[in-house]
Structures are given as C-alpha cells and as structure tokens.
C-alpha cells in the first residue's frame, strides 16, 4: 500500500523552479532514498510534503488523503514527522524536554508525554544525556535528538533530511542501525542523504533528482550503475560498484 504519493509536484520561487514535476511514491514499511547534487531541490520537495511551503502545482497524498496546503502541525498530528537538515534544537532546554514537546502531539498529560519521551530516548541509546541541555550536545547527538523528537510524535512516515551529514564513520554506522530499527518497528522512512555508503545500505529504492527533475529511480544497485546518475552526481568512482 502506498503511504505517500507525490504527483507532478512543482514549486517555484519567483522565477526559479526548484522542483519540477516530481512524481514518486513510497510503499508502507519501505525506506525510500532521495539523492541529488546540492541545490537539486531535495529539501524543497521535503518542505512541500511537510507543509512548510504550499506547492505551486501537483498533488501530494498521504495515507490516501490529499494534503496539499495543510499546515505542518496538522500533518504532524496525522502521522507525518520530519527532521531538519540544519538542526533546530530547543537549545536552552534539556534533551528530555525537547523530546517531550514531540510526545505532546498524542497526549495532553505531562506524565504520559514524559514517559513516552523517556521510552524513545532509551530506544535511541540516549538515556545518559537526558538531562543535558540541547545546546551543549555534539552534532551527532543533535542529529539524534532531531530523530528522537520527530519519533516522539508517533509518526507513520518519517522524513529524514541529511541526518548523517557531519557524522564520523562509526556514528554513521550507528545511525544506519537506528534507522533500520525504526523501519523494523513499522515506521515508513523517506530519507535525503549525501553519504552514499549509508544511502546504499539503507534504501529499498532510490530516487535521483537534478535541477528539480527526477533523472532516475530504482534499487540501489540499479542506481549505482545508471549512466545518467553517475554523470550527474556519483562520479566515475561509483561506475565500478
């Protein structure tokens, strides 16, 4: 069953067409990767799906319902959560506080929200830092906090925008494990990433865009051997793989 379906999504900023008739869909329980050169329109596509920008044209359906022009907070409550490429922690508050803000999406009670938040913090191997102020976290932990907060809203679909950028190789491996673990627990995942090793290991399917247009779609191995993709993005090194 398709949980997200994007048809001919277009977004213009003044004279600039950031996303150009992009169509894609995600099956429930899948991990879909979105890759492309810098400025290809990946984050803009995410922002349209998450309700930050209203699309110029095209339709977005989530769980069978058209969600064009819905507000981010309403989308979040209907089960669509996202993280930000540039992390936005509530810096003056503790990790637990940050995550609790997310878990208030499904309850009005503070004790219930805090219990849920603690559960997620444990799940992400984060318990030792729950009282640390978010502003004092390392970049790896801030990325982890982004995921924890989004997860606390109990999403059916999670949009991850470059959660591995800036991490050390060992931290990337841990993040890959975390994302797989989330998928195994029933969360569908749509991920933007530049670290090829990670995206190849994670994705069931990958969509490649350039100048806002889709130039390829397929399994990781199909993408790695696609000539257009190699020329536009991956570079000759990947041709062998």
């Amino acid at each position, binding site marked *: 069953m398709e949980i997200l379906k994007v048809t001919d999504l277009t977004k213009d900023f003044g004279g600039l067409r950031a996303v150009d008739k992009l169509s894609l869909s995600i099956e429930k329980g899948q991990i879909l990767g979105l890759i492309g050169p810098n400025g290809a329109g990946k984050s803009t596509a995410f922002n349209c799906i998450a309700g930050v920008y209203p699309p110029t044209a095209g339709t977005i359906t989530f769980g069978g319902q058209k969600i064009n022009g819905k507000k981010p907070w309403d989308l979040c409550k209907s089960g669509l959560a996202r993280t930000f490429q540039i992390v936005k922690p*509530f810096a003056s508050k503790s990790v637990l506080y940050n995550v609790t803000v997310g878990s208030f999406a499904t309850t009005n009670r503070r004790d219930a929200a805090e219990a849920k938040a603690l559960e997620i913090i444990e799940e992400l191997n984060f318990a030792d830092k729950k009282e640390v102020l978010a502003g004092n976290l390392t970049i790896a932990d801030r990325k982890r906090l982004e995921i924890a907060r989004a997860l606390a809203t109990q999403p059916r679909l999670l949009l991850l925008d470059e959660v591995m950028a800036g991490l050390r190789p060992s931290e990337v491996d841990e993040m890959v494990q975390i994302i797989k673990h989330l998928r195994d627990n029933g969360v569908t995942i749509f991920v933007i990433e530049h670290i090829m090793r990670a995206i190849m290991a994670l994705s069931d399917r990958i969509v490649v865009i350039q100048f806002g247009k889709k130039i390829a779609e397929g399994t990781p191995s199909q993408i790695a051997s696609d000539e257009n993709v190699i020329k536009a993005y991956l570079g000759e090194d990947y041709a062998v793989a």
Partner: protein
Amino acid sequence: MRQNQIHTAVTIGLLLVAFGLPLIVRSATYLHILVLLYLYAYLTTSWNLVGGFAGVLPLGHAAFVGIGAYTSTVLSLQYGISPWLGMIVGGILATIVGVLIGLPTLKMRGAYFALATIAFAEGLRVMVENIDYLGPLKLNGPRGLQIPPMNTGFTHFMFASKQPYYYIILILLIGVLVLTYLISRSKLGYYLNAGGEEPEAAMALGVNVARAKLAAMAMSSFLTALAGTFYAQFTLYIHPKSIISLDLSFEIAFIALIGGRGSIAGPVLGALLLRPVSDFSRIYFGDTLPGMHLIIFGTVLILVMLYQPRGLQEPLTRAYAKLLARWAKNP
C-alpha cells in the same frame, strides 16, 4: 528527598514572612512601597506569560492595566457596581482586546512585535486623553477619574489602612505565580517555550505556535487588567498619563529582563531589586533628577545583558540549588 523537604520548608518560611510582614512594618510609607513591589511582581509575572514563555517582547502592557482600571472605575462611579465585579469585566474586555491585537501582531518577529504593541498602547493613551465622554461613559479625558473615598469595606474594594491592600495583592501575586508554575509544566507551557525558541521546529512537532501564543496573550491581558483595578482602588486616582504610560510598560519589561524572562522566579527577583531603586530614587532625587530610576535601570539592564543574559535568576537559582545540596548533606 531531603532537598525537597528543605525546599518546602524554605517556601513555607518565605510565605510566613510575606504574610507576617505587616505585623512588623507599621509605617504606611513602607507598606505602600511593599504593595507597589508586589504589584509590579504581579504585573511582570502576568507579562511573562507572553514576554517570557512565548518569546516575544510586548512593550504595551500598560494598555491592559488602563483597560482594567478604567472599566472597574467607570462601572463603580457611574453605576455603583462593585469594583470586584468590574475587575472581572475589565479582565474580559482586556482579553478581547489582547486577542484582537495578538491576531495580526504575534506573527511578527522581534522588534516589529514590540513596536506594534508600543504603537497600540500609545494610541489608546492618546484616545483616552482626548475623550471626555465615550457614549454615556465619563472618562474625563486627560484629567482622569478620582474615586471618592467614602464607602470603605471589602465589597467596595476600599480600605482606610494599607494592610488589606497588602494582603489582596499578596494573594493575587501568589495566585499568578502558582498559575505560571502550573502552565510551565503543562502542554501549553512546553508549546510556548518550543514555539518561542524554534518556531519552525515546533510546528514540525505538532505545535500550532500562533494559537499557543494567542492563548498566552489572552491570559496575560486578563491578568494584567486585574492589576489595573487594584491600582485604581489603591491610589483612588487614575489618569491616562499614569496608567496607560510607556513608563509603566517599560518598567515591567525592565523588571522581567533583569530578573530573567521565561522563569518563574525572575519577575519576583527583578521587582525585589528594582522597585526599591525606583522608589528611593524618587524619594531622594525626585525634585532634582526626576527619571533617575530609569537611568539606573538602563545601566543595570546593560550590565545584566552583558554578563547574565538569562537574567539574575540564573546565577541565583544555581546558588540556591548548591546551598540546598550542602544543607541536605550536613544538617
């Protein structure tokens, strides 16, 4: 556990001191200063719901003080309605006005919101200064309204001595502090903090930031207006320059910024520190250097912003926590 017990003991001790103070302080002048201190702590705590938790900087809260004061005073002078009832009517009126101001302005960021609130409050002051009669209601323009001290007693919200006023404002202050505490631990409190700090992230986490801010604005305007009625009944004389003035709006913001916005103790600490400065500078420099207190406030504000940008509450709460830990260890 021991720390919690000591903290409870300290809180009870402070409450006892606050309630017992009028037994020791007999001088009407000092009681007057204390009442104003609590009044400003109350005003700043109410302001803090928007200015602290919601992360915007309203600089026109005097408008709500004015609405509260004028509503209850006009109702009691012209229609004989008890100021207690007028207090509630004023609060509701201020809530409506607060929501109407908030709807377009709360979306503005930083200085624009501050400027918009200043503009509104100043607009209201100029209007009241130029209106003698609003329909059947006598506002008396720039001359203001005097409340004749004829019927003293609880139902008339008028007393011959300062003590009753002291207890009324003390109870109001404790009430608003408890309310703030409860809000800060509720969903609304979390949403306000999140929306104030990182609105985009908050929205993505299911927070309707605009609605949360509007709710805070509504509560803040209601509570602020109650203080307006209190002020009117305490001084028995209101006029636009004293009660809808920028001075008042700014002093509230000064107290909050110096004490610590967004914290519960901040407004009270700020008032404890700044109100005496304000009163004594008026007593000693009132003739020669009027406005001296604002210069002192400005200097203190610059120093605090440079060295303790979260306000004085931060180092003080840290020191208090340390003390608690030490007492808990060596009784």
